[in-house]
């Protein structure tokens, strides 16, 4: 006899919805056609709640909750869009743009970039904060790929896909706070690391931080949609 499914009922943006226990607000919202902006989340990868773009309001709490890592509960009332949330999301995007050097016009991902698309969707018309203009390096040591830290938003998708899906765990994060950097192995050049050259990290990178050397100009769309299928096929085996 199969165990009874634990069903929760809740309200998202005034809509009555039902969910399985343990599901996140993001999953339930998307199942019901309610869009919440995300950046570090990617279907097929574990969530870390790093970017905070998916924050939502939950009735009864003054706090904001990241929808990608917050589980639903019975009777929950969630708002995914409000002036306050819009303001926070825009500010987060502005902070991301000021933190490193995002120059869309000459980026390989121009026109295919998730950060750029989010900024457009959230109505970020300008940046109100001073740019930090840090001096960051480009690692071109890999035969096929390049990492440009100027364009990295520290979403850690590369770290997760390499560890969870490829099983190589070449990518990791070094340093803390504003000084954090994604690194390969123990901060060896990518070309000298234990990289398997599968290219999954390049496909899941939301910006032009990781790119294929043969893709230049702005002809570098990425295809991360393979992940859920890859997971599904592995589970089936």
């Amino acid at each position: 006899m199969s165990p009874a499914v634990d069903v929760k009922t809740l309200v998202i943006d005034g809509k009555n919805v039902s969910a399985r226990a343990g599901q996140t607000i993001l999953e339930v919202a998307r199942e019901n056609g309610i869009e919440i902006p995300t950046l570090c989340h990617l279907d097929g990868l574990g969530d870390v709640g790093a970017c905070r773009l998916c924050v939502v309001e939950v009735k009864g709490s003054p706090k904001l909750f990241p929808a990608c890592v917050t589980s639903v509960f019975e009777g929950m009332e969630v708002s995914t869009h409000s002036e306050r949330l819009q303001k926070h999301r825009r500010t987060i995007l502005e902070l991301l743009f000021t933190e490193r050097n995002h120059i869309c016009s000459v980026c390989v991902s121009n026109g295919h970039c998730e950060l750029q698309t989010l900024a457009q969707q959230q109505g970020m018309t300008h940046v109100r904060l001073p740019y930090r203009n840090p001096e960051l390096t480009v690692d071109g040591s890999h035969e096929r790929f390049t990492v440009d830290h100027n364009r990295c938003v520290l979403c850690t998708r590369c770290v997760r896909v390499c560890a969870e899906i490829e099983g190589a765990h070449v990518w990791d994060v070094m340093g803390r706070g504003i000084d954090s950097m994604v690194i390969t192995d123990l901060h060896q050049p990518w070309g000298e690391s234990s990289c398997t050259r599968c290219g999954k990290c390049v496909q899941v990178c939301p910006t032009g931080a990781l790119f294929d050397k043969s893709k230049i100009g702005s002809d570098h769309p990425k295809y991360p949609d393979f992940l859920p299928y890859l997971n599904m096929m592995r589970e089936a085996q």
Partner: protein
Amino acid sequence: MPQTITIDPVTRLEGHGKITIQLNGQGEVEDAHFHVTQVRGFERFSEGRPFYEMPSLMARICGICPVSHLIASAKACEAIMSVRIPHTAAQLRRMLNLAQMVQSHALSFFYLSSPDLLLGMDSDPGGRHIFGVVAAKPELGRAGVALRRFGQRIIELLGNKRIHPGWVVPGGVTEPLAPAKRDEILAMMPEAYHGIKLALAAYKQIAESFQPEIAVFANFQSNYLGLVNEDGSVEFTDGALRFIDSAGNVIEDGITATRFTEVIGEAVEPYSYTKFAYYKPLGYPEGSYRVGPLARLNIATSMGTPLADAELAEFKQLASGPVQSSFYYHHARLIDILYGIEKIEQILTDPLILDKHVRAIAGVNRLEGAGQAEAPRGTLHHHYKVDENGLITWANLVIATGQNNNAMNKGVLQAARHYVKDGKFTEGILNRVEAVVRTFDPCLSCSTHAFGQMPLALTLVDANGGTVDQIVRG
């Protein structure tokens, strides 16, 4: 009392520049300079970038001639990769470069200079712009707009974008030419031919009346530099450089991009952010030279296309040796356009033009590379050094405007000496001094252009810095 006349900014140019004219106590012109007052810093901030990103980075220098930068940059990258690009890719790039030359020249001639030529140097500055030209000579105005569109549309068809197309990459181009696009370009040919023939006829009609300007618009003996094919015909994209002296003697031939820095040096003057290129064996400033349409026609023995060859023969009749007055840049520009249209038509009939092999792939095989091409306004040279991983460690660009810098300065002085008498000047005189610079069609910044409406102030300043007289326009 010594005085200085300042024209700041110079109008109908691409970018920001100013002219100063120093007068002595008798009100005679002592000296004159053309200053480029902006600094861009591309050579510095490209350091650390992957070399294969350079074409798209460098194209951002200029919104008028991004294609020339794309091509010179891609060629420098191909030297680093040590590859020869496929024939079809070379032909497609040649076509793209010619299309850009046509639109850029159409901009220079019709939008920026034809108001002076067709309406008169002393005409009302309020109407001395492209709209004034369209009102006075509607057919010619329309032809100018159409020629610009012809070039821009070809760039858009090939590169998917009119400005800064990302289609030219190290190794070739990103996608081959689709048959429908070829047919669309061929369908545009008749209107383009009609437009340039009309412009040439109109220019020849009025050129005679500009004899006083021809005599003093940077009219002096100088050397010339430009690309030619092995047979001596005009070339914009490949070939090698030829250097001739003021009598037309070939001083040096076959200067490849690799050898460029062996023979060309760059001097610095305190009054301008643009450098002054010179031919090293002759030293500076004796080795100064001119580049661009006038230089190309003085250097080439033929154009390689029938209609342009006939025009070249007529052009060569203007002088017994090289044509020396910079006023004739306008004439040469129109012949360039005619050549461009004919050559594009020729390229489109190449049986391999639709071939799918348009890109060579390679990594870093050499740590240094240089590339050159003819931009609309003259020879353009890119030179890069990279590390083992292909990251740029050093970059140097020698642009056409730097190579014409000495001639522009001499030309401004020549015209100022002729026109400014007893410390007095009129708006028409001011316009003539600016028009000398316009003949060169310099590209100063140069992502935008302005015509007529830019604020302009010409100030007479005495030795103590006090304003004696001022004319403000805009």
